[in-house]
């Protein structure tokens, strides 16, 4: 094989490897180091370095081979020198040429020559000097030919673009991370604002303070038990906090009436889900269906709920969850005209009303979550904290919950089988 052909094949092979290296998504420093090796190996050079402009003058060494690691400390490029590279004034690459108009070479000649650096090439990408490649020590001892210069220029351009692309990707990743953090902060602010708002709603009703916050927490617990995604769980918690927002437009005397209200006042009170929807619908919430969950939290599976008398499949699952959380909190807290109900009584109510008022799957999920806490299978005792320490005590509680769960799950699977047979 002719020498020139052999050289061409060797150079092409290196260019192909360089392209692959630059297109890779691996470690940045390793990419630069490998690219530099490819360049050195193409012409059999014993010394080389890739230095990057850091923007304000100092050059940062990214890869070095055959030179001292400390060679580049205090090494810098001035803005005028960069401009000279860009304008074409500083085309000279040979360090030894003392007649060079390249101010950078003239300023650093002694130091570069002492280290055996013979050539300096700028990496120029999109009209900007992004760094320099320094080379020296041709193993053959020959002078650099025009072909060598062409090969080096081509590879330097490749490496420059590679470094630039990797830096851009790093910046994009950094921006994405910043945006994610900002988004998380905004969501936290949104959540805190909604919680404060929920507290404001509950202040209007002096007998149900903390109700909205508890409904939010119960809803979250149920949704998590039902296997909802983290985002959906956050959404339903918000819906729980805001489910009674419509009460803001209901007369305070009706809300705080210390007795069972008449039909007229009751109809006024029953406006609150629709009013809540009207308040929440124009807001661009970061979670889906919050207005609908507020609107339908008093709907029942048997169609006897309000405001629209929807039935089972027509009611969004989120509204079914908030509905159960709302009723559970109402049953387990004192009201001006009654004491809270015992847990046995509450379980009886849930059992009787599953399939009528409540969705059996939702009740079963809530019962499972309570049972896990009763059995000590959860880290936190969030439900116990809301209900009070003694409320779930008693040996019969796990049995009550276990029976309820198995009955409801049996009912759900029976219904499923029936639906399939049609």
């Amino acid at each position, binding site marked *: *094989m002719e*020498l020139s052909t*052999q*050289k061409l094949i*060797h150079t092409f*092979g*290196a260019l192909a*490897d360089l392209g692959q290296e630059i297109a890779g998504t691996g470690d940045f420093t390793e990419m630069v180091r*490998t690219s530099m*090796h*490819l*360049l*050195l*190996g*193409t*012409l*059999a*050079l*014993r010394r080389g370095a890739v230095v990057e402009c850091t923007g304000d003058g100092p050059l940062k060494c990214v890869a070095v*081979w*055959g030179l001292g690691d400390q060679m580049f400390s205090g090494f810098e490029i001035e803005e005028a020198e960069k401009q000279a590279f860009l304008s074409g004034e500083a085309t000279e690459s040979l360090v030894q040429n003392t007649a060079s108009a390249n101010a950078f070479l003239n300023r650093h000649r002694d130091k570069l020559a002492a280290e055996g650096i013979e050539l300096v090439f700028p990496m120029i990408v999109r009209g900007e000097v992004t760094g320099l490649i320094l080379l020296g020590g*041709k*193993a*053959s*001892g*020959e002078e650099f030919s025009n072909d060598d210069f062409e090969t080096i220029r081509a590879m330097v351009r490749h490496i420059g673009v590679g470094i630039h692309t990797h830096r851009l990707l790093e910046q994009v990743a950094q921006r994405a991370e910043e945006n994610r953090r900002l988004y998380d902060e905004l969501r936290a602010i949104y959540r805190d604002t909604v919680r404060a708002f929920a507290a404001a709603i509950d202040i209007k009703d002096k007998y149900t303070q903390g109700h909205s916050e508890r409904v939010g927490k119960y809803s979250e617990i149920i949704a998590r038990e039902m296997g909802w995604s983290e985002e959906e769980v956050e959404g339903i918690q918000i819906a729980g906090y805001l489910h009674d927002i419509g009460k803001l437009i209901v007369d305070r005397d009706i809300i705080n009436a210390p007795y069972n209200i008449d039909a007229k006042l009751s109809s006024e009170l029953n406006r609150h889900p629709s009013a809540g929807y009207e308040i929440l619908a124009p807001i661009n919430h970061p979670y889906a269906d919050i207005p609908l969950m507020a609107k339908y939290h008093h709907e029942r599976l048997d169609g006897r709920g309000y405001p629209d008398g929807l039935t089972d499949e027509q009611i969004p699952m989120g509204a079914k969850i908030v509905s159960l959380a709302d009723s559970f909190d109402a049953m387990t807290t004192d009201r001006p005209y009654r004491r809270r109900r015992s847990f046995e009584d509450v379980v009886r109510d849930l059992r009787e009303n599953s399939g009528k008022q409540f969705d059996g799957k939702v009740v079963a999920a809530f019962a499972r979550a309570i049972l896990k806490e009763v059995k000590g299978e959860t880290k936190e005792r969030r439900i116990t904290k809301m209900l009070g320490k003694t409320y779930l005590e008693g040996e019969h509680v796990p049995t009550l919950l276990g029976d309820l769960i198995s009955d409801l799950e049996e009912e759900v699977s029976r219904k499923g089988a029936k639906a399939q047979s049609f």
Partner: protein
Amino acid sequence: MDTPSGKLVRSHCVGTTAVVYASDYLNKLTGEKIERECRRQLNCGCRALVIDFSDTKLVNSIGVSILLGIIDVAEKSGARIAFSDVNSQTVQLFEMLGLTRHVVLAKDEREALLNLSHFETTPIVH
């Protein structure tokens, strides 16, 4: 010593000369392993290195750069270096790039050891 492909970098010592066997394709992964083995041998007191290319079909640019690095390290330690059993295509490449100015090329390992043993008795002059 393990290569990334799980194969060992074979090496052995004959007196103060270490013989290190290059793999079938001398690239970045295998080259760095060989470089490490050569450095280790030099640190252990070897005064000469033979890199045997009998299994090597191809050497790419990174392989060349790494071999130059080994030559540098060997020279700095005052050690001699020989390449043995290099195929004709690779010999052409090494000659074209000037590597042969810095190493002894030998027909096989035995010849390389013989050449280096001659150098071992000759004081190194820098």
